[in-house]
Structure formats: structure tokens, C-alpha cells
């Protein structure tokens, strides 16, 4: 695992910050960001996929009232890919019975999806060697967050109650120079952090991103690490059971 990793610095991998508005579709936006990043890493082609298609074609109904990342991936598999954001733009509402998946050309697709090991070292390794992944966290500290690295305890941010999904795009270390540095940390000691892409617009947080402390399972970041698998289709040889 390298000491730092920031997929934002790789040209054309991370799409612009999205804004979910009053539609609770963080799960769909995080899944879209995951697919876009992996597609760019694998095929060196920048695409922006349709979040609205994930909402309209979701088997579970009203995606603006919440959902899960695996539902988004199942929708992509069922529809054999996703249309572009340009063709099928985000409206911020849901028309469950008006899935327009067949109307537009697919610009990206996935082979499968999987859940990663629930430990921060394994997550960092996968992030550095494969690409951004989706994680679910407890969002209670984010309403008032402006900038810096959040380091919480289970008492201040319960890691069991995750209710928001975002895209994990990197990690690094910073000097402990914040307001609490003198009281809680050794001066000059570096603080390891995760870099996360939110979907609340670029005017929130650090230009739409935020950072969580790495190594303390802050706000439950290890609870649901999921990623799509984007690759060339592999021709599978049929197998048969010996008679």
C-alpha cells in the first residue's frame, strides 16, 4: 500500500461533483461515480453515466427515498449497462414505471460487483491498486462540516448506524495543525485520512469532498465497502460434472 493515493490527480478518472438536491439518491450517485472511475482506469475513456436511469429502473421503487449500492449495481447488470448522463439527465425525481433504459445507447457496463473486506488496510490496498470504491458512513457530523479531517469516536459518531453512501477516492497524511492538535495530538505528528467524494454539490465541504480519519473506523467507514467489477468480458468455458 503506497503512503498516499488520490485518484483526483489522475486525469479523467473522477467525474465532477454531483448535487443530489432533495432526492436521497446518494447510493445511486456513489455507484455511478464508482463505475465512471473504474471505466476510465480500465479503458482510458471518460464517461458520465446516468444516475436517473438508476432511479427510474430500480427494482425497489422510489430511489429518492433512499436505497442501497447493490441495488444500483443489480440495475446496471439487468439493463446490460447504463446510458450517458447527457442522454438521460438527472431530474431529481423518480418515475418508477418510466424506465427508459432501452431508449438510449449504453456507454458503460459492469461484469459484477463485490463487497470488500471490512478493514481499513484491505480497503486502502484495493483503492490503490484497483480504483475508487463506495462506502457507507454515519453522516451525522457532515451537516455542520466545513473542512479538515474528522476524527470521531463511537460515542460521537456511531459506526454501526451508517446512513449515507459516498465514493472513496484516496488517502493520505497531514500534519496535525487544527484547533484540537495541541490538546489531542503530538505537535507535528501526521494524521492519516481518507478522501471522500460527496454528492451535495461543490459548495459543501472541501469543494464537495471531505476527509475522515484513517485507522479508527471513523463513522463506520468499514461497514459496507462495495465496488463494481469493470473488465473485459472473459469467455467462460463450460464445465460439466463427470457422469
Amino acid at each position, binding site marked *: 500500500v503506497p503512503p498516499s493515493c488520490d485518484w483526483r490527480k489522475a486525469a479523467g478518472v473522477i467525474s465532477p461533483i454531483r448535487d*443530489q438536491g*432533495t432526492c*436521497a439518491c*446518494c*447510493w445511486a450517485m456513489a455507484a455511478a461515480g464508482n463505475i465512471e472511475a473504474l471505466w476510465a482506469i480500465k479503458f482510458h475513456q471518460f464517461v458520465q453515466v446516468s444516475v436517473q436511469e438508476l432511479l427510474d429502473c430500480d427494482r425497489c421503487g422510489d430511489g429518492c*427515498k*433512499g*436505497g*442501497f449500492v*447493490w441495488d444500483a449495481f443489480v440495475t446496471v447488470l439487468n439493463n446490460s449497462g447504463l446510458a450517458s448522463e447527457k442522454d438521460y439527465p438527472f431530474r431529481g425525481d423518480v418515475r418508477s414505471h418510466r424506465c427508459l433504459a432501452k431508449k438510449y445507447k449504453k456507454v458503460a457496463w459492469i461484469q459484477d460487483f463485490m*463487497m470488500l*473486506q*471490512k478493514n481499513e488496510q484491505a480497503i486502502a490496498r484495493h483503492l490503490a491498486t484497483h480504483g475508487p470504491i463506495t462506502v*457507507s458512513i454515519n*453522516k*451525522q*457530523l457532515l*451537516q*455542520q*462540516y*466545513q*473542512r*479538515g*479531517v*474528522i*476524527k*470521531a*469516536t463511537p460515542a*460521537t459518531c456511531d459506526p454501526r*448506524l*451508517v*446512513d*449515507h*453512501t459516498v465514493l472513496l477516492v484516496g488517502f493520505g497524511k*497531514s500534519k*496535525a*495543525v*487544527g*484547533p*484540537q*492538535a495541541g490538546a*489531542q*495530538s503530538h505537535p507535528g505528528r501526521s*494524521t492519516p*485520512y481518507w478522501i471522500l467524494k460527496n454528492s*451535495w*454539490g461543490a*459548495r*459543501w*465541504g472541501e469543494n464537495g469532498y471531505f*476527509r475522515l*480519519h484513517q485507522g479508527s473506523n471513523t463513522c463506520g467507514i468499514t*461497514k*459496507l465497502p462495495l465496488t463494481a467489477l469493470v473488465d473485459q468480458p472473459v469467455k467462460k468455458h463450460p464445465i460439466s460434472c463427470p457422469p
Partner: protein
Amino acid sequence: GSLRAQDAGLQPLELKEVFTLFQIRYNRTYSSPAERARRLAIFAHNLAQAQQLQEEDLGTAEFGVTPFSDLTEEEFGHIYGHRTVTGGAPSVDKARSEERGQP
């Protein structure tokens, strides 16, 4: 510049000024003076909450005025979250096969 958590210690008149700046910055309008007063009270509560978070945080985070400072915790949770994951969520621990000989 940004409005910081220490703004929570402002006097009432200053708080109203900060709230007006918030409305301008984030383009917020309210349906009536009563609704604006209610949002101002929520805003003041959130600034106090931000100050408390600032004191509790063990990292370098800064808390203060954000685009969501006029929302209650319940409104924020309802609008911006997803369904809370409960014990029924898939788990790699549960999916792992047992060792040979184990039930």
C-alpha cells in the same frame, strides 16, 4: 470568506446578520416571517451544535455554517440519507464457509 463555528457565540443582532449572509450566500427564501424566525432558531441551534462538534473532534475538522445550517437534524437525515442499514445487511463474515468438520 466562510462563517466559522465561533460565530455561535455571537450576540442576537449579530446572529441575525450572520443568518442574513447565509440566506444570501445559499439563496434561501422563506414563505413567511414566522417561517424565517423558525429557521433562524434552527440556525442558531446548529451553530451551537457546530461549536460542540468542534470541541469534541479529535482531528483537524472545522465545523460551522454550511448549506444545511437551516435544517433540523431530522430534516437533514430525511432528505440526504439513505435507508439505514440494519442487521440484515449482507456480511462477508456470515458468507464465509465454515472450516471442515464444523457444523
